């Protein structure tokens, strides 16, 4: 694309950036859910093996 001034150039890039920003915000929410969605117990180094003790020795 041809731009005859810095202003025109910015008008184009800023418009694109604003669209991208919208995408980023939506993406951030979805990614967060994907990342945090699985309900796993947080691994706790101080945890005593109480619930995890089962499963062997049957």
């Amino acid at each position, binding site marked *: 694309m041809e*731009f*005859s*001034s*810095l*202003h025109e150039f*910015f008008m184009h890039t800023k418009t694109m950036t604003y669209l991208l920003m919208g995408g980023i915000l939506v993406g*951030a929410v979805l990614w*967060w859910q994907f990342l945090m969605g699985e309900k796993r117990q*947080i691994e706790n180094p101080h945890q005593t093996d109480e619930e995890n003790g089962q499963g062997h020795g049957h």
Partner: protein
Amino acid sequence: MKRRSFLGLMGAAGAGLAVPAPARAGVKDFRGFLETPGVLFDGTRCIGCRKCELACNQVNNLPEPEVPFDNLEILDSRRRTDASTFTVVNKFETPNGPVYRKNQCNHCLEPACASSCFVAAFRKNTDSAVDYDDSVCVGCRYCMIACPFEIPTYEYHKVLTPRVMKCTLCGPQMRAGELRLPGCVDICPVEAMIYGPRNELINLANRRFKQFPGRYVEQIYGEHEMGGTSWMYISGTPFRQVGLREDLGTKSAPELTAGALAAVPVVVAVWPVLLGGIYAINKRKEKIAAQEQKQAVAAAVAKSKEEAEEKLATSLSKAEEAANRRVDNEVKKAVKEALAKKEEELKAADASKPDEEEGK
């Protein structure tokens, strides 16, 4: 490294810095309006006749002014553009007598008004004119804040259709073929203004500097100011004496706001990451704390349960013992009682026997 070549390098670098480089590293350079039309105003020629004001008023169908255009006394007061005046000529007293300068929109190469408008109502046309579209203008007047030359004005008195008003470079009329030259340029009796390709105007100005040594301040106002303008000025007195600010700098409006605008997407991308991270860290801490608390509670509960059980067991066994003892006693007592009863019966039987025998 040898000293001479080092110095040579330095010299080369220095020279490179001194000459305005056409394309600075990392900076995009756009030169779309360097050869499009512009106007050169020569302050040494202007005689302050206000004919340009008249012409501008007529070609733009502006309302008749309170003070007629042939009244030159008004030149004694400092005026600026307003909603019904796109251009004004001001008189400046200098050591060498009065000097006149015409003021109007400079049709910047990087217009601050266009950069600042949040509905993009301004557009720099291919004929250099910075056009304004009142069909979208909201009337926020940020363009007036932004313009370094204090040009745009507003129709404050209008209720429903106030517009921003400023010189159009007669763009609409010239595109429609009604005018061949901007009205003000055309009417000037002393050719104080010349309309033509901007690069040629710059050449012309430099020729005049050479032709009349000592007559001009050898500088073209508008060549670099605020990124350059299509309407430029040359003058015989320092520009600040004719109301042109020399402290504007060469940075254009888009460059001035570039930093702030560049930070916007960064905030959008980085803030959620940071804040989400902080949130997650806090949540994790909380969860661990909660778990630890739960475990502590569970442990405490288990402990007290054990103790209780133990206590129960001992007390139970004790109770049993006691119960057993009691049972024993009862039994013993019962047996004893039973035995005693038996004995009594026997004794009684013994005693009654002889009676029976006697009775027989």
